[in-house]
């Protein structure tokens, strides 16, 4: 059995070594695949804050992924058509600058998470799952009927947005940007889980009554976790849209929500690197199995069933031999 600490280091090493090799061997497609894995990992690290730490089974995280995507799509669309986003009461222009887009994505998805979380946290358990799923569907149908931004067809952005000092059109530079964000967010999540807030949240998941007795509001703790979680997934959505230079209602679909959750399960719930390992495995499966058969999702479904029924703790749990993430 390999210690979880070493396993985490190995997973992170893959994110450095494989793209470095691909750059050296001039294989830009591999870099794109790794970028995809890094962005999916980021989205799942976001969901893992709500799911793993807060115990909130949200089946609607595609809402935030999609909001991030459309924040990028709408801002860049107005920049590329040279039309202002809004003229009244003050003028807002579109932009091609990544930092501005990211900030917009984070703020908007945090706001959406605040509203959705506030409503959904009135309930718990299976209601919470159904309600988050339903809100996801609401955004999906809204984006389909929102004809100003492409409706069902989505929006294409011709040139990738820029970051000061970098040439984002080079796959390796954009990858570096995504990996840096992933590392920062992983560090932040690590700190968050050990902060007073993280410990209180952990307790609120396990025994909400005791948390209440010591004078903390468990619902409020969960709401804050949900908002942070949504904001991170929103940022991932903006990056994903920039990777594809395309946004469409698919980013809001319930399948997307399910997939983000699948990344976590494949890797291992409530483990810092669980979602990262899961996203990596998912992209690898998508690439290799997808090349073998058009119907590769059948195999993914079967694999997922086996993991849920027999292999608690996901890939990291199986390899490190420790089923439970919490000691």
């Amino acid at each position, binding site marked *: 059995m390999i210690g979880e600490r070493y396993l985490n280091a190995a997973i992170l090493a893959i994110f450095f070594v494989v793209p470095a090799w691909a750059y050296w061997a001039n294989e830009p497609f591999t870099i794109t695949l790794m970028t995809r894995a890094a962005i999916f990992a980021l989205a799942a690290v976001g969901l893992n804050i709500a*799911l793993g730490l807060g115990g909130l*089974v949200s*089946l609607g995280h595609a809402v935030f992924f999609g909001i991030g995507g459309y924040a990028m799509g709408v801002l860049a669309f107005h920049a590329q058509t040279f039309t202002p986003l809004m003229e009244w009461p003050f003028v807002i222009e579109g932009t091609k600058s990544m930092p501005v887009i990211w900030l917009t994505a984070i703020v908007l998805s945090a706001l959406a998470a605040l509203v959705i979380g506030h*409503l959904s946290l*009135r*309930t718990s*358990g*299976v*209601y919470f*799952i*159904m*309600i988050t*799923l*339903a*809100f996801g*569907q*609401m955004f999906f*149908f*809204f984006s*389909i*009927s*929102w*004809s*100003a931004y492409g409706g069902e067809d989505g929006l294409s952005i011709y040139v990738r947005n820029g970051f000061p000092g970098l040439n984002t059109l080079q796959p390796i530079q954009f990858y570096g940007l995504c990996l840096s964000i992933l590392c920062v967010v992983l560090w932040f999540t690590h700190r968050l889980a050990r902060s007073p807030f993280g410990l209180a949240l952990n307790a609120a998941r396990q025994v909400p009554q005791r948390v209440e007795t010591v004078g903390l509001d468990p619902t409020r703790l969960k709401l804050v976790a949900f908002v942070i979680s949504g904001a991170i997934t929103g940022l991932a959505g903006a990056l994903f849209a920039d990777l594809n230079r395309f946004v469409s209602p698919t980013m809001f679909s*319930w399948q997307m929500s*399910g997939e983000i*959750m*699948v990344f976590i*399960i494949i890797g291992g*719930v409530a483990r810092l690197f669980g979602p990262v390992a899961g996203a990596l495995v998912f992209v690898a499966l998508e690439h290799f199995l997808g090349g073998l058969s058009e*119907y*590769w*999702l*059948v195999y*993914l*479904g*079967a694999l*997922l*069933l086996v993991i*849920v*029924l027999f292999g608690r703790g996901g890939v990291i749990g199986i390899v490190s031999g420790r089923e439970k993430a919490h000691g």
Partner: protein
Amino acid sequence: MSFILLVEQVLNGLQFGIMLFLMAAGLTLIFGVMGLINLAHGSLYMIGAFAAAAVAGYTGSFVLALAAALAAAAIVGAVVELVVIRRLYDKDHLDQVLATFALILVFSEGTRWLFGSFPLFLDIPDYLSGPVTLPGGIQYPLYRLFLIVVGLLIAIGLGALITKTRIGIQIRAGENDREMIAALGIDISRLYTLVFALGAGLAGIAGALVGAIQSVQVGMGEPVLILAFVVIVIGGIGSMKGALIGAILVGLTDTLGGIFLPELLKLVTDPATATSIGSSLASMAIYILMGAILIWRPTGLFGARS
């Protein structure tokens, strides 16, 4: 905006709601008795529709097609319960969500494998097609009226099954205290398989009935499944009455919202903006309804107060 249009749309909403009820009833039954959240319920709806389309294409008989839909969905439901679902009862909701999500992937891609990606068509039989004249001279499609009647009959039958028969008593007892009825000598695992197959059969019938007015394709089940979740959230989990009222409320809101919201907005703004904002709002109407009911009653209209 005439009276005739209003009646037509109310009937459409009713028809949509009744079909949602068939889905929601199975889901709420399965949740009430076994405490299981089943995302794969939409797949059973799809299986029913495909079985009906295949049998109708082969034999040309609509009645046989409906019987095939019921049988196929119930059998697949029973098998899935025996192989997968029963391992999930004592697991947490996250595991149930993931395992049933995995089942969706298997069923959807498996169906695509068998039948291809192109939609199939299930024709309305001659004796049910064409319009019928309602009192007041309103023309309405006979088949949609048939759906309302059949759906209501199934709802009444289901109500009788649950309140009047021995098996219904066992189901209700299972909702209240599963250890106790097991102790009374009732084979609880057989009861679970039966309830799951019953829910699956209802979904299959709904899929076949709706399949005749929409196209039969992979992925047709999930939008209906999510609407059925909205119905359950509105009606309250485990309540059959809640499922019926919630379903009709959702059906009417969705149908009437799509027609009347753009018209209402035309009173305050120009037609083009009214149409685009109105249709966007209409697509969100049922979720806004759900949010409002949640604020008012977090456990739904007929849910247990906790």
